[in-house]
C-alpha cells in the first residue's frame, strides 16, 4: 500500500467517524419491514407448494388413469422435480445471497421507485414496494403494483381510479393514493419527486 493509499484509508475513516445511525429507529423500521418480507416470502413458498402439489396430483392422476401415457415417459418425469423443489425447501434452507446466482439476488432486492432526496418537509416511510408519505396532516401512499393488475386500475373501478396511476413501467406500475383532504398541489409535489426504475 502506498502513502496515497494509506492517506485514502485514513481519510475515509476520518470522514465518516462521527456518522452514527439512529439505532432505535433503525431497529424499529427494519424489524417491521423484515417481518413483512418474511411473510411475503412464506406466502410465495406456500403458493409454490400448492402449485407443486397440484402438479404432482395431476401427474399421479394421469399415470393412474392411463390416458395413453405412463409415468416413465420423459415429458412427465422432469416436470414434478422442478416444480416440487420450492415446497421441499423450508425458509431456513433457502440459498443465501452468497450462494444464489446474481440475478436472483438482484430480484430479491428490487425496489422500483425512490424519492428524490431534494423533497423537503415530508416524512417518507421505508421505501420498498409500498410506502407512506406524509406532509403535515396530509397522508398519501405510494404503491408499486405488478403489471398483471394494471387492467383493473384502468377499467373504471371507482375504488381503483386510473388517475392514481402515476407511472407505468415494463413490468410494474405505480399508484399514489391521497388520503382525505389532500390538495392536488401536495400530491403533485410528491409525484414530481418520485424516481423510477427503467424496467
Amino acid at each position, binding site marked *: 500500500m502506498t502513502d*496515497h*493509499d494509506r*492517506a*485514502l*484509508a485514513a*481519510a*475515509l*475513516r*476520518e*470522514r*465518516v467517524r462521527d*456518522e*452514527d*445511525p439512529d*439505532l432505535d429507529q*433503525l*431497529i424499529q*423500521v*427494519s*424489524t417491521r*419491514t*423484515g*417481518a413483512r*418480507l*418474511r411473510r411475503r*416470502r412464506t406466502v410465495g413458498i406456500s403458493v409454490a407448494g400448492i402449485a407443486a402439489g397440484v402438479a404432482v396430483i395431476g401427474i399421479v392422476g394421469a399415470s393412474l388413469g392411463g390416458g395413453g401415457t405412463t409415468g416413465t415417459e420423459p415429458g412427465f418425469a422432469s416436470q414434478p422435480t422442478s416444480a416440487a423443489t420450492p415446497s421441499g425447501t423450508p*425458509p*431456513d*434452507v*433457502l440459498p*443465501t*445471497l*452468497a450462494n444464489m446466482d*446474481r440475478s436472483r*439476488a*438482484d430480484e*430479491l*432486492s*428490487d*425496489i422500483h421507485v*425512490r*424519492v*428524490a*432526496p431534494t423533497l423537503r418537509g415530508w416524512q417518507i416511510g*421505508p*421505501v*420498498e414496494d409500498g410506502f407512506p408519505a406524509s406532509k403535515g396532516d396530509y397522508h398519501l401512499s405510494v404503491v408499486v403494483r405488478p403489471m398483471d393488475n394494471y387492467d383493473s386500475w384502468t377499467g373504471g373501478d371507482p375504488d381503483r381510479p386510473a388517475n392514481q396511476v402515476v407511472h407505468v413501467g415494463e413490468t410494474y406500475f405505480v399508484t399514489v393514493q391521497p388520503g382525505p383532504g389532500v390538495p392536488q398541489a401536495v400530491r403533485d409535489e410528491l409525484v414530481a419527486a418520485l*424516481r*423510477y*426504475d*427503467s424496467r
Partner: protein
Amino acid sequence: MTRNDAEEFTAFVHATAPRLHRAALLLTGDHHLTDDLTQATYARVYASWRRVSRADDPLAYARRTLLNTYLSHRRLRRNSELPADPTRIPEHPGDDVDHATRLDLLDALAMLSPHDRAVLVLRYWEDRSVADTAHDLGITEGAVRTRSTRALQRLRPLLGADLTERTP
C-alpha cells in the same frame, strides 16, 4: 421469531450498524439514501435472521446484502443524481489541484462509478483483500485491481492535502 431471536437481532444491529451505516454513506454520499440503504439491508437480514444468525459470519452476510442492494439500485441513482462533472477532478494524477476548490471526499467519491466506489470502500475502508473484494462483488480479482487503480488515479490529486476537510 422468538423473543430470543429478536434480542439477538437487536444486539447484532447495535454491534454492526455504525460500521454498515458509515459504509453506506461512503457508497451513496447522501444521508437520506444512506438511511434507506441501511434500513433495507437490516430488513433483509431480519427476514432471514434464523439462518443468518447461524452463519459463520453474519456481518459478512449483512455487508453483502448492503452491496447487492446498493448496486442493484444504481440505475435509479443515475436518474436522480446530477451527472458527474469530469472537469472537477483532474484526469491525470500529476495535474495541479486548486485547493480553494477542493472537493469534499464524499463528493469526490460520488464522481466514481458505483462499482468503483464499492471497490474503494471495501478495499480502503473495510480493509478487505483483493480476493475478498472480488468475492463480495462477484467480479474477478483483475477487475478489482483495474477498478481500484482507475479510481485511485482520479482521487489521488486530492490526497495532497487534508481530505477530511468538508466543504461549507
